[in-house]
């Protein structure tokens, strides 16, 4: 197989994971209201009495007759909460199986894809010259969000699927300890995630507006059909879509998460149930996207992880994947020779513990 084809298929995967995610959003959004409506058919009263009208109204949440009670508490005046039944049906019978299928499926596709196609290699090998792609502050931010996101995803998925997956393996007592730890950890790190997403937005939004070549990139599906590698700027359209997914789903997760975590601003059960639905659906989608993102950043594309570790990428990598950006850098004379970089950073296996001067790296 020639190198060019490999590159096309790797982009194809990036694209596919995005399309798949979008499809599932549409699917789940169309299922959710249906699930919420499923329980509306109330078992009819067996015998009708004069008060029956009243009781029928009581069962409707929007009943004109709001009950009163001496007991304080969320919705304590409500006699029957119908949405609860709908939420539990959605969560237990739709969300959990769908989460398993989607996450397992995406993982399976990635593994299969990798086994068949291998990762995407550098077409021209390494040039030995480098371009600065991400400043230190951007890398710190990226890994800050990544760490927290993975922790939240892990703890959240334990809460969501642990009953089905972990209880049969470890038993109720042990799982309860794991679940309690997950819940406390999840609640603690959740708000930090919001700060991280805001940070990502501030640092990266300017590079993620639709730009020259994006339509072409998408039309060629990242180079899936066209023979030539589609042209891209600093971020290609696939990466831009991932960015906006992170921002929008991330903010949705944060908003719904905060509603769940601070249940004392008068939110009633309906709002909480809707938040749980959105939170669960959003989390599963974003984790599925994360699988694709991690693959493209590591095994799926040679030499791309470096951009987030050292911050520098090989000039050939840049030309192959982000030609517009590479050209702009070359025009500016921003290409750094390998020896120069090594001297600056002493990264290449030096055991010298005394750097002669602090590397004049990017200001941060």
């Amino acid at each position: 197989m020639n190198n060019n084809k490999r590159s096309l298929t790797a982009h194809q995967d990036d694209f596919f994971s995005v399309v798949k995610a979008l499809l599932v959003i549409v699917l789940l959004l169309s299922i959710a209201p249906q699930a919420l409506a499923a329980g509306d058919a109330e078992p009819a009263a067996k015998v009708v009495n004069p008060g029956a009208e009243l009781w029928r109204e009581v069962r409707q949440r929007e009943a004109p007759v709001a009950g009163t009670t001496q007991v304080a508490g969320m919705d304590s005046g409500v006699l029957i909460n119908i949405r609860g039944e709908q939420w539990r049906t959605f969560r237990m019978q739709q969300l959990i199986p769908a989460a398993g299928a989607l996450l397992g499926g995406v993982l399976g596709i990635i593994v299969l894809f990798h086994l068949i196609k291998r990762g995407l290699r550098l077409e021209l090998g390494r040039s030995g010259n480098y371009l600065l792609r991400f400043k230190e502050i951007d890398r710190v931010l990226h890994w800050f969000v990544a760490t927290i996101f993975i922790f939240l995803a892990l703890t959240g998925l334990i809460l969501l699927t642990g009953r089905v997956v972990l209880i049969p393996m470890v038993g109720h007592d042990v799982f309860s300890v794991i679940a309690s730890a997950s819940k406390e950890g999840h609640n603690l790190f959740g708000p930090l995630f919001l700060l991280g997403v805001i940070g990502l937005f501030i640092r990266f939004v300017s590079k993620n507006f639709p730009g020259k070549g994006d339509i072409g990139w998408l039309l060629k599906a990242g180079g899936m059909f066209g023979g030539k590698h589609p042209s891209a700027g600093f971020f290609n359209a696939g990466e831009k879509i991932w960015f906006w997914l992170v921002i929008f789903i991330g903010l949705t997760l944060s908003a719904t998460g905060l509603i769940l975590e601070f249940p004392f601003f008068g939110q009633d059960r309906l709002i909480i149930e809707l938040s749980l639905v959105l939170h669960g659906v959003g989390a599963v989608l974003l984790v599925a996207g994360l699988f694709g993102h991690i693959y493209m950043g590591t095994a799926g594309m040679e030499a791309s992880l470096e951009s987030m570790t050292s911050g520098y990428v090989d000039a050939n990598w840049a030309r192959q994947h982000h030609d517009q950006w590479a050209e702009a850098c070359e025009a500016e004379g921003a290409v750094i020779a390998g020896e120069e970089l090594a001297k600056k950073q002493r990264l290449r296996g030096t055991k010298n513990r005394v750097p002669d001067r602090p590397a004049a790296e990017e200001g941060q």
Partner: protein
Amino acid sequence: MARMKFLCDAERCIECNACVTACKNENEVPWGINRRRVVTINDGSPGERSLSVACMHCSDAPCAAVCPVDCFYTTDDGVVLHDKDICIGCGYCFYACPFGAPQFPTTGAFGSRGKMDKCTFCAGGPEADNSSEERRKYGSNRLAEGKLPLCAEMCATRALLAGDGDTVSNIFRERVTWRGSSGLTWGWGVAYSKPGLRRGRGVEGKAAGKD
């Protein structure tokens, strides 16, 4: 085996809250928790009705189905109980319950709920019957002593009935006949129309084997 049920007769309930107080006292429930509450509709207008609400011990209990740590179980009497050693205080059972039965000690702000507490049909919890552990965590276990829930025992107008479902509905049917109007077994459609959890879909709590 008996199938325990609650029935509240809205034509009789006078909103005296004796059941609420009796329950609190008998079970020494955690501070800030009411396992039972009385809800009044059309308060102060013609057609005012009151109902005493607590856990109805549903056949296919939503709380048990949704609990992430699967800590509920149904006793052979059809009473839905839970294991506080396992509960993580997530609140999901409260969101799922049709009757708003599960309650949480508000031991602090910031979504920290503490372990769930709810009506046990005066049947304690998974610990040995009437052990001090059981009493401390779940209150009294009157069922094990051959008694029925105190809330119903205390009801001056006999609006609140508790006991075997057949007996309870027979009493109610007699009343309805005698009153000459048709009655409504309030909440029964929601709570008992579905097949029993314990014989059902293999969803069983840790202590499912307990008698």
